[in-house]
Structures are given as C-alpha cells and as structure tokens.
C-alpha cells in the first residue's frame, strides 16, 4: 500500500482479515512471509513493537476506560511521551485540531457517544505517533451521518500523509473512501482493484467467490417422509435490560428424509436458540417438535440424542468437547448411554477406545493416538472427530451448526462430502451456516431467519449469495425468486442494495 492513501481490505466472515491485521499489529506471528515497512523488512513481536514502528490499530470494540476522561484515556500507557499534564493536553489539542477530530480532552468517556469514542481511539493511536492506522470495521457501529464524518476525518489524515488500512464489508463505503482495494477470500488475496474500475456487484462476487457448487451434487435425495416437524415454536428470553422478548416466534418447518434444510441469517437472529430448542437444551414456551412421528417436545436432551438426533454444535470447544479429556472419552460424550460406549449403566472403555480408533481412521482425524487430549488437535481435526462421533450412531436427523467454521480447506471439503453421503442414505439435516456458499451448495431447501422468524424461503438451485444476503438483512421476504442461473445479467437484481448487503449478512457481529 502506498503512503498517504486509504487502502481497503474486504472479505467475508472468516476470510482472514482479522488474522492479517493481528499479524500486522504484532498480536500474532506469521508462519511464513515478511512485512516491509518503508522498504525495510520488520518483525513485529508485539503491539508495542508495532506502535514503535508507527503502526496503530483502532479495534472494532473500543478499548477505553469509561470512568476516565478523554485526556486520561489517551495518556494511559503512554505517560512517557508528554506526561499527563498540560503538555499532554496541548498535544491532544494539536492533533485534534490538525485532523479535525474535535475531541474535548476533559470530557468523561462514559458521556461520549459512539462516534466520539471512535475519534478518541483514533486520537490515542495518533498520540502514540502512528503513521499507519488500521481501522477494524470502523463503520459497523456508526449511523450514516457519523460514517460521513469519519470519512472526512480519514481524508484529513490521508492529506497529512498518513496511511489508513480500512477493513470493512460494506462495499458502498469502501468504494467511496478507498484509494485501493484488496479482496481476500479464505485466507488468500483474490484480487487487488481500484474503485474507479469496479462496482459493488463485482466486488461482492470476488468476495463470495463466483464458483458455485458443482451441479452433480444437486441430484435430489429428498423423500416425502417427514423426519422433523417443528410447529409454532416460540421462545422468549429476558435480555440484558430485563425486557422479555421473543427470540423465536412462529417457527414452522419440516425436514424430510434425505433433505438438507439450510437456515440463512445474520448471526444472532435466533439460529442458536432454534438449535438449542430442537436439542432440548432450551425449553420453548409453545410449539411442538416431532421427530419421525414421535412428539419429542417434552423429551430431555439425552432422550432426543438416543432417538437419533446428531448434533454438531456451533462452538465445539464449549459444547462438543471435553478439551482436557482424551479423544476416546470425547468419543463417549453425548452417547454415553449407547453402544459401544456402555452397557447397562457400565462404561465399556475397551470398546469405546476401539471405536475411537475406527473413527480416527475412517474420518481421517490427524492425531498421533487416541490418548491425547482433544485440546491438542487442530480445529479441523477436532471437528472431524465430532462428525465421526455423531455419524457413528446413525442419526435420523443431524443438526449441523456452522459445521466448517474455523476448519481448513481440506477438512471442509471432506465434511461436506460426509454430509452429502449421509443425506443419500436418508439422513435429514438441519444446516445453519454463515457461509452462503456452503448453504447454497448443500441445502435442498433454504429458509431465511430474521429477528427470530423464518421470513423467506428460496430455492438453492436458482438463488445467488447476493439475493440471499439481501433477505438476511430483512430487505426481502416471502418466496425469493432467484435469477434463473448464475450468469444472469446484473440488472435482474435491484441495483446496489444486494451487493452491499450480502457480505454484511455474513459479517455482522
């Protein structure tokens, strides 16, 4: 990137933006490759290193002490530079004036709005002498007017010769403020473009990847036998403010044998709660859940598992593994009442160990043995073990929440293959994912979840990630009519909106 420019870095959720920034800021060490600053190769071991070389970072989540004033927050940890008194105050005023930040040094941070806090964060970085600023999704928390003000600030910084790295997924904004754009996808740079030669749609395609799943996986295995029926599900929860609100409302769907039902949605719209309600971890207020003709609404989690629900949780460390237990004990977890793990109340460690060996071989779990703890495996191998475990009990229904999150590319393809293979044998799958490619590629039916409701449905054969993304932000509802095939002209979609919203869907946290 060039000095005195705003360089935007765009990419999907999990594309590697944050990891790249952590490396640039010295929070993480790269395995290979070099970083050059002003032509000199540098090695950044810690954020302090980065700061001393003029690299500063403004985090997405502000790191300010609320009960301190702006002045105190700025000098905190940098007392050596200009002290904590009048000199520091003068310096803050100077920076604030020269970049038009308009910061009041004596205001208490807790009294400031979000935009002001962000300016304090920027000032903090500048105060420490940064010449290169990394802004991690700075607009995520701002309203449009504030975004404009921020962009004015950025242009100011740029004109003073500072370099800004701007991470975002809002393509409209990126195009309006950036001088150069780098698109990354699944950990590699897929394109470097300049705003004048591109448009939001093109950028979105680069981000999500244009290669849609190959058609041979499309042969339908859906039968007319209902496996899971959810009827009128409603779940209320009390939020942090003590207000009771519905996190799930009027949820109805049916999954047939051999069908994959994909649920798309921005995270936090009730997907996690839906999964927990089906698993029996949360008790819905009303609603009936029927599995293979049996009403399981009142059944405890263990009974549901025994009845044939396999579960791949979203957060495997918290919900699927005993990290400090050996692999074979993890193989028992969740299926302690089933063969081969136990018989009549007694564990059968020998059989469980043998079966773990089998899973390790069949599912290609890369491990030196089954006595190592689950924590020592990589994320992908942990996930393969979990999938192997769940599949080993021949589930009727598999609940897969983000099954390939944080998993390397090889393992990802393998996991997809396993789900497809099981589907051919009549498995019903409830798939929750933020990866739109994965959703469209694996699902037979797509539903969109927004604010606890299933607001739209779509046919994965015809829908594009952009259209799906648009529905995820609540912009569309009902049945989504996708463009007939992938290379339909761009004007079948309402101009900029979908391209802008699609990645936002996957990214918003």
């Amino acid at each position: 990137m060039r000095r005195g420019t705003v360089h935007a870095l765009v990419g999907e959720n999990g594309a590697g933006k944050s990891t790249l920034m952590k490396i640039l800021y010295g929070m993480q060490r790269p395995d290979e490759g070099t970083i050059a600053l002003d032509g000199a190769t540098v090695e950044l071991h810690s954020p302090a290193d980065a700061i001393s070389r003029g690299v500063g970072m403004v985090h997405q989540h502000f790191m300010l002490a609320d009960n301190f004033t702006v002045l105190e927050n700025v000098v905190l940890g940098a007392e050596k530079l200009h002290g904590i008194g009048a000199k520091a105050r003068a310096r803050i005023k100077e920076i604030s004036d020269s970049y038009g930040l308009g910061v009041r040094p004596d205001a208490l941070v807790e009294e400031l709005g979000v935009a002001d806090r962000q300016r304090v964060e920027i000032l903090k970085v500048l105060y420490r002498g940064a010449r290169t600023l990394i802004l991690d999704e700075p607009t995520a928390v701002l309203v449009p007017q504030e975004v404009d003000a921020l962009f004015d600030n950025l242009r100011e910084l740029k004109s003073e010769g500072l370099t800004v790295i701007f991470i975002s997924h809002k393509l409209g904004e990126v195009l309006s403020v950036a001088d150069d754009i780098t698109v990354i996808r699944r950990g590699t740079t897929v394109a470097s473009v300049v705003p004048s030669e591109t448009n939001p749609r093109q950028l979105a395609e680069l981000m999500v990847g244009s290669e849609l799943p190959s058609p041979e996986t499309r042969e339908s295995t859906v039968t007319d036998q209902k496996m899971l029926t959810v009827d009128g599900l409603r779940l209320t929860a009390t939020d942090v403010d003590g207000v009771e609100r519905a996190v799930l409302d009027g949820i109805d769907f049916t999954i047939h044998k051999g069908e994959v039902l994909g649920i798309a949605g921005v995270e936090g719209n009730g997907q996690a709660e839906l999964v927990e309600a089906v698993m029996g971890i949360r008790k819905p207020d009303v609603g009936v859940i029927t599995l293979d003709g049996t009403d399981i609404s009142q059944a405890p989690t263990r009974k549901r598992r025994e009845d044939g629900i396999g579960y791949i949780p979203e957060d495997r460390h918290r919900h699927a593994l005993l990290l400090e237990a050996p692999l074979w004990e993890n193989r028992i977890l969740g299926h302690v009442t089933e063969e081969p793990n136990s018989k009549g109340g007694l564990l059968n460690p020998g059989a469980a160990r043998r079966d773990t060996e089998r899973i390790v071989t069949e599912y290609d779990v890369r491990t030196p043995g089954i006595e190592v703890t689950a924590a020592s495996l990589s994320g992908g191998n942990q996930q393969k073990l979990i999938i192997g475990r769940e599949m080993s009990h021949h589930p009727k229904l598999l609940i897969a929440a983000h099954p390939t999150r944080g998993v390397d590319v090889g393992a990802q393809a393998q996991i997809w293959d396993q789900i497809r293979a099981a589907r051919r044998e009549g498995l019903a799958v409830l798939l929750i994912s933020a990866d739109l490619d994965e959703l469209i590629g694996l699902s037979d039916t797509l539903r969109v979840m927004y604010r606890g409701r299933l607001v739209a449905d779509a046919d994965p054969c015809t829908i594009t990630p952009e259209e799906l993304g648009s529905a995820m932000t609540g912009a569309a509802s009902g049945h989504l009519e996708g463009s007939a095939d992938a290379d339909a002209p761009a004007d079948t979609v309402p101009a900029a909106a979908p391209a802008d919203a699609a990645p936002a869907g996957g990214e918003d946290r």
Partner: protein
Amino acid sequence: MKKFDKERMLLAVAAPLLAIVSAFLLTALVLAATGKAPFEAFGVMFEYGVKSDSQVYILNKATTYYLAGLAVAIGFRMNLFNIGVDGQYRLGAFFGAAAGGAMGLPGLVQIPLIILVAMLVGAMWASIAGLLKVYRGVSEVISTIMLNSLAGILISYLLVDGRLGVLDKQTNIVATKALPESSHFFTIPAGGDLDPIWGFIVVAVLAGVGFWFLLGRTRFGFDLRAVGRSESAAEASGVNVKRMVLSSMLLSGAMAGLIGMPTVLNDTHQFTADFPVGVGFTGIAIALLGRNSPVGIALAALLWGFLERGANRLEFEGYDKEIVGVMQGVIVLCVVIAYELVRRYGLKRQQQKVGAELAAQAKAAKSDKQEVPA
C-alpha cells in the same frame, strides 16, 4: 503411544513430588528461622514415624482422613466445592452415635444401621446446599460454610444432658449414650502390646474401590466427570446438570457421614463434646494433594497421619509442634501451585508433540494435500 503414557505417568508423579520437596525445603527455612536445626527435626519425625506403634496410629488416622478426602473429591470431580464436609461429618457422626446408643439390636443389624443413619444425615445436610444451588443459584461454597456453623450449633443444642446427651458425672463430659458392646466394630490385632488397627480401614478401602468404580466405570461417573470438565459440553451432550449437582452433593454428604464412623465404632463408641473438629477441612487438603484419585488420596491420607504423629514427637523433643501445621499448610500451597504448573506444562508439551508428529506426517503426505480443492 507408549512414549506418551510413560511421559504422562512421569508428569503425574512429578507434581506431588515437586510439591512435597519444595514444602520440606520451605519448612526447613522456617525451622532454621526459629533457630533449630531443620534436618534434625525431619530425622526425629521420620525415626519416630516408622516405629510400629506409630504405624498403627498412622493407619487409624489415615482411615478417617481417607474417607474425608473421598467425600471432598466427589465434589471436586465435578467442580463442586463442598466446604461443608466438616458439618456433614459431625452431624452424621452425632446422629449415628445417638441412634446407636438408643438401640439394643444385635451388632450385625445395628452396625449397618448406625452407618446408614450417619450417611443419610450427612447426605440430607449436604442436600440443603445442593437444593439451594440448583433452585436458587446459591454458591455451594457459601451455603456449605454456613451449614457448618449451623451443624455445630445444632449439635451443641442437642448434646445436652436430658436431650440426646448424657452427662458423665465423673469426668463432667456430656456425650451421647455409649454404644452397646455388640455394636463395636471389629479390630485387627497388630501383635504384641500394640493398639489394634481399626477394622473400619476395610470399609475405607471398599469406599475407595467404590469411588474408583463409580467414577471410572459407570455412565453416572462419566456424566459427573463431564460436568466437572465442561458444564456447557455436558449439558449439550444430554447430561441433566442440575440433577448431577444434586446427586453429587448427596453422594459427597453420604461419604462425609462415613468419616466419623471409624472414631465412633472403633474408638470412642460415643459422640463426645470434644469430638474432633475440622476433619472435613483436612479432607480438602488431602483431596487436593491426592489429585482426587482414590490411590492418591490414600497416599495423602497416610502422609497426613505421618506428619501428625511426627508433630507429637517434635513437641516432646522441644520443637514447636506448630511447625507441622506450617508444613501441612505449605504442602497444600505447594501442591496447588505445582499441579497447575505441571498441568500447563504437560498440556503445552502434548500440543507441541502432536503438532510435531503431524507436521512429519503432513510432510510425507504433502503431495496428496495439495490436490484437495480450495
């Protein structure tokens, strides 16, 4: 695989060894600071500790301590801190002794009955904390500490001449009515003119075997350990966490009820006003030292008995007997630190090893890997 196991064994031994050695060194410093020759004191303790009558004493003490360690360890295994073992034990022993004094059944019936009463009372007392935690979210640490005080107050209220106590006119000590001769537990003669070994040691060993079997070989034990390792994962796996909290509290309390039994059935044959206090707390230290494993707790209980035996002798030889208290405290501190250090080291080491082994595998299979579509 063999290599891993060997190393794990080594690490398992490393922690207690490190703890005890550093505890001895620290105590040596304390001794030196009081102006006494440290290693002489250790010599005195050791010489005295291996004498036959000391061995009987240590075994008998360890029987009580072992049961206390087990009671605490049941809670520890699922991350429950049952600080109330002391109260549960005292209350269980009290009611067991009172019931035993009031009945005149044949020993074969009465002894199990006394034990049952003690275990039930211990379990009930613990269940209060369990229920409070499950239904009202009260931390078991707080509630069990308060229940300890309540247990003490309840006993002093009931242990009065005319209530459940009997005043011994000669010694002026109030105690429960003495157990009939038939309800004395059998003893194992140690030969010569030595005191006999308490027969209850057999029950303690059985309790240890039961503990191992329940935790290591049953579904219930797996669920319990799963909750201890990760409550969220256990819940997602289908464990009813609330029920587990209650059951393990009950179990821990029932085990606590057993702690007083060797003393009541083998030694005092009644609950006296000066019945030992604080055994439940000793159990915490012993469970920590023994890593919550049945064998480890046994070793820890023996060590504790040995130290206390040594303390008596030290006093006789003109040392401050409090030095053993210091030593015990230091051991517990060292144990907690050493285990954590060794655990972290072991975990890191294992991750490195797995990484290294996989890297070697990956190198061999690199050509395959590159064929996987991106």
